């Protein structure tokens, strides 16, 4: 196994692990996003735009 392959495999494992960890934590993150009251005001703004043009 040469240096390129060793580095490559390490990077592959790291990148796939980060993706897996992000998805594993996504439930908590999504709950946080969904319950963010600052975000909800944006939707109200969108509804006002739709009503008033």
């Amino acid at each position, binding site marked *: 196994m*040469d240096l*390129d*392959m060793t580095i*490559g495999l390490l*990077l*592959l494992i790291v*990148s*796939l692990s*980060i*993706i*897996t960890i*992000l*998805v594993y934590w*996504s439930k908590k*993150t*999504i*709950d946080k*996003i*969904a319950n*963010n009251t600052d*975000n*909800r005001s*944006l*939707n109200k*703004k*969108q*509804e006002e*735009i*739709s009503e008033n*043009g």
Partner: protein
Amino acid sequence: MASMNDNISSELSRDLNLFHITMMGLGMMIGAGVFIGIGNAINYAGSGGVILTFAFNGLVAMFTAMSYAELSSAIPRAGGAYNFARIGFGRGTAFCGGWMEWFASSIAGSLYAITLSIYTLRCLSQWDLLPWGPNEIPVIAERLMAAIVACIFILINYRGASETGKIGALFTLGQTLFLVAVGGVGIIVAIKDPSRFNNFDPFMPHGWEKLLVTMGFTYVAFEGFEVIAQAGDEVVDPRKNLPKAMLYSVVIVTMTYVAVSFAAIVAVKAGPDGLVALENGTRLAPWEWIGHYGPKGFGEAVSRLIPNSVISNLLLTLAVIFAATSALNATIYSATRASYALGRDRMLPTFFAKISPKRKTPYIALFLTGSLVILMATCLPVTQVCFLCKYNVFVFIFHGKCLRY
């Protein structure tokens, strides 16, 4: 009558669930691009480079999806990026963004209709069900078939979001299962015959800098999860399901691409000298052999996994047909919701926002968008459709990226 969900009003019916919209995102992402991209990526980056390309692109797509997920959860309405631009930058930018989104999706839809038509007719021709040979099909037959398939999917979209979601999910599941099966067979073959791991030597034959090149041209295989944002008015519990679907679709597609590219590399059995012979007798390393075929490299490699050439050709053709079908369904859905949102906000005539009382679908937006798809699929030369698609999707993605940052 407005239905309520999490205090988010919608005139459309909330018939889509997490599975439907995840499949819709996957259907857009796994287009025919991946079948063509793998062979070219191996040619540029080598056997190790192609796997790293998809893993790194998955990481980039995941960060992009997280950004998109937050925006979609905040503004879970039909319109997607157009809504973000409308709130963030006002009417002018939103007008350009919304039109681009509508037009880019419509052009992509016409390209998928043509792809689906060509592959379906060739498949029928191979089974001697048509009076022409596979390479003798007249252009008018291809265009007529493209118009027919576009009409079918316009009618499916008209029948309701539930039908659109179910049909799209069925085809997406078919193509995803094919790719997962290819990946699985590749892993089993490599475990049974460990000598195939030698195909990864050299790991990066052209150096690490080529990785950026292949990441650039294969990223298109990760674009498409944005369509999920268009379902904001029709999905149950949109604040949670939209972000979940985006993240899940990116992770599924990344793992699938990594497994499939691994399978393509190990599918080729090298001789005792570590080389494989071309038809003209030239002997090449396995990665060079796949790369030699360019866009057809993936098909050639997969045909080595399935010894029966008739079955392997049939499976590949069906996979492309399924990919084009699910992408066509998703693009018609996406383009319709984009024009509906523009009509809703008076950026297009307000009749674009009219909802069918029975079906709860934006029927005028659907039929006008469908007409645009059919017009481009039947009247424009294929190369011009491809050029328009490439140009508009690039401008649309660039516009979307600018908005996000």
